[in-house]
């Protein structure tokens, strides 16, 4: 009898999704799919709006990583204005982008994923969440909360508010950094760095406890895609978009963002609202690639900051140059948190960081513009077309999570095959199916349903659609 298990309302992710697992007659997993069930429509409803509003409108795509959309959108608008923004505007944008990287990674690791790592994949679901963490491991939970606060506070100091600041504008930013705020941010850095290092040290203790998960959490060869700097170091704001093969060897690079469509194409699957981008030269679905912290660490020669590089050395000694298991996203995320804090310090110490020349003004000078930046969860592309009056006529957005869609789908199938037994349904099995999705830290919407409170109901259906077994999770 063929049966289907539906995990409806995947928990502890950002946004709404469900997973279906098809079982064969023997109760073994035949297929599995990850469905993104929400539809946003930003590409359509920005049509007709002035380009100057784009960064602020596009930031509304997400409440967790609005800064990423501010960056990619502002860069696309810079391209439309055909301006080179003042160097200090670029520095300030980098500061905000790194602050966002730290807070978003902290949310993903501490709030969403660490409950699985600390309480175990089969741990009591009532405890396996941030509240259980606060109760049993208050210092660890505090580190996560404070790291997130650190990033959010910097965004607030720069942009006037922590979520959806309208500070990043086409041509630069609309206010310089004040001495007072610079000193305030600088004073927060030592504490944040200590917490990040402590988290990395803690992770060393738990990372070896999950050999089965390392083996089967989206562990397969794919290409990697991400930005690298001119000297091929870790980069999140601007640089060359590098495409590597499964061993980390470069196969293509994109210096001019407007040419992205020659290397990336998007497929649409009937089962999901999330598009599936792929590397165009290899075709669909062979052009599967991964983005995000793991991909960035595979692509970069190094981080360029001492403490992050030290951690990256250990990472590479243990896992090699191009680890294939997506379980390692967690570690990569922690390394990027350390890098982000170190780089923030470096930027704050720049002699011109208080320069008030932070905006270039121009009218629209091109009718088409593309901006590429690295969101915490991967490469983000905004592509706009405007008319001669500067009104939006068309937009295409390739969101970081979308880039990982093919890999997430394959990962779900791999995990389901390894862990799910339709004859003996247990909560921990299905938690692993969700946990592989959490490795990618997908941001499926501007939703911040981040505390694992969505009810999870799994049903086993007969071929006739009758419910023969069900599990209800109460978070």
């Amino acid at each position, binding site marked *: 009898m063929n049966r289907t298990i539906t995990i409806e309302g995947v928990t502890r992710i950002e946004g709404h999704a469900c997973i279906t697992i098809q079982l064969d007659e023997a109760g073994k997993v035949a297929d599995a799919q990850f469905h993104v069930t929400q539809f946003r429509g930003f590409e359509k409803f920005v049509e007709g709006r002035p380009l100057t*509003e784009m960064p*602020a409108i596009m930031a509304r795509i997400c409440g967790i990583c609005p800064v990423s959309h501010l960056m990619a959108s502002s860069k696309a608008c810079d391209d439309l204005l055909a301006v080179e923004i003042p160097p200090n505007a670029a520095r300030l944008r980098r500061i905000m982008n790194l602050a966002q990287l730290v807070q978003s990674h902290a949310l993903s690791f501490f709030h969403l994923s660490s409950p699985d790592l600390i309480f175990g994949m089969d741990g009591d679901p009532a405890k396996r969440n941030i509240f259980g963490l606060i109760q049993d491991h208050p210092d660890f939970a505090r580190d996560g909360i404070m790291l997130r606060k650190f990033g959010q506070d910097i965004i607030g100091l720069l942009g006037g508010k922590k979520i959806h600041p*309208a500070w990043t*504008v086409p041509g630069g930013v*609309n206010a310089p950094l004040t001495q007072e705020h610079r000193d305030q941010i600088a004073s927060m850095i030592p504490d944040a760095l200590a917490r990040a290092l402590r988290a990395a040290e803690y992770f060393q203790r738990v990372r070896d406890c999950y050999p089965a998960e390392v083996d089967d959490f989206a562990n397969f060869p794919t290409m990697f895609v991400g930005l690298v700097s001119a000297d091929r170091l870790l980069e999140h704001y601007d640089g060359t978009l590098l495409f590597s093969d499964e061993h980390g060897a470069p196969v293509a690079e994109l210096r001019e963002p407007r040419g992205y469509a020659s290397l990336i194409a998007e497929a649409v699957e009937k089962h999901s609202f999330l598009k599936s981008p792929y590397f165009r030269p290899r075709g669909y679905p062979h052009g599967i690639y991964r983005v995000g912290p793991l991909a960035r660490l595979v692509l970069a020669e190094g981080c360029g900051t001492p403490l992050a590089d030290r951690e990256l050395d250990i990472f590479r000694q243990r896992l090699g140059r191009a680890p294939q298991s997506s379980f390692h996203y967690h570690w990569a995320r922690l390394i990027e948190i350390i890098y982000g804090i170190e780089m923030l310090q470096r930027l704050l110490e720049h002699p011109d960081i208080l320069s008030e020349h932070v905006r270039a003004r121009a*009218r629209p000078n091109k009718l088409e513009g593309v901006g590429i930046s690295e969101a915490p969860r991967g490469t983000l592309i905004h592509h706009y077309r405007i008319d001669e*009056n500067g009104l939006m006529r068309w937009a295409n957005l390739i969101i970081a999570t979308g880039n990982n869609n093919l890999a997430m789908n394959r990962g779900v199938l791999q995990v389901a095959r390894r862990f799910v037994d339709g004859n003996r349904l247990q909560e921990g099995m299905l938690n692993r199916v969700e946990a592989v999705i959490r490795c990618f830290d997908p941001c499926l919407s501007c939703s911040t349903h981040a505390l694992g409170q969505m009810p999870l109901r799994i049903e086993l259906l007969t071929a006739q659609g009758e419910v023969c077994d069900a599990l209800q999770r109460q978070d």
Partner: protein
Amino acid sequence: MITQVNSSVESLTLRINGKDVSCRAGDTVLQAVRDNGMELPTLCWLEGLTVWGGCRLCMVEIAGSPKLHAACATACQEGMEVQTNSDRLHRYRRMIVELLLAERNHICSVCVSNGHCELQSLAQKLGIDHVRFAYRNPQLEVDNSHDRMRLDHNRCILCTRCVRVCAEVEGARTKDIKGRGVLAAVIHDLDQPWGESETCTSCGKCVNVCPTGALTHRGVAVGEMTKKLSFLPYLTLMREANP
């Protein structure tokens, strides 16, 4: 209708919200209220422009009259008893602002006038945290054809301040209103794109008197548009001094 301000010394006494106040003969109730330190909301009224009486936010109760009166268009009379702030008035004002918000696309969070908008401030002051009426969500254009200024019909509340300042202060008469009811819209000349108007002097007065983000400068990003209204009383004063 032009309100003539009588400069004679003749004064009137009336009662506003239970308080005896005096004003000059010829003053409107709105003037009397504000001159005596009391608040009365307005959106279409602006000092220096003719009275329009369109927004109906300054409605007041007058003893002896069963209907409400627009304070901006009602002359004070000796012994008048005026109530500006009853529950009924508050309810009506709230409804008016909610209807304005529902009529077009007022998306404050991504509006260039966010934080500097008279409609937004009024809604906040009236405690409007939700709108009870279904949003119409009309599909309206943004006229970005002018070299320096922009008209976003989505944010327009048809207060006609721009039409009046263009005709009465600048003397260009570029702007007008076409259509009726919810289909009414600000136009330029013979309903041409603003950038093609032959009469517009590009003075920018319309942008500064606009209470919302409907008329703005081009190139401003979200929350960056601030209006400067000080020019209008100054121009009016200079005209009165040098007729």
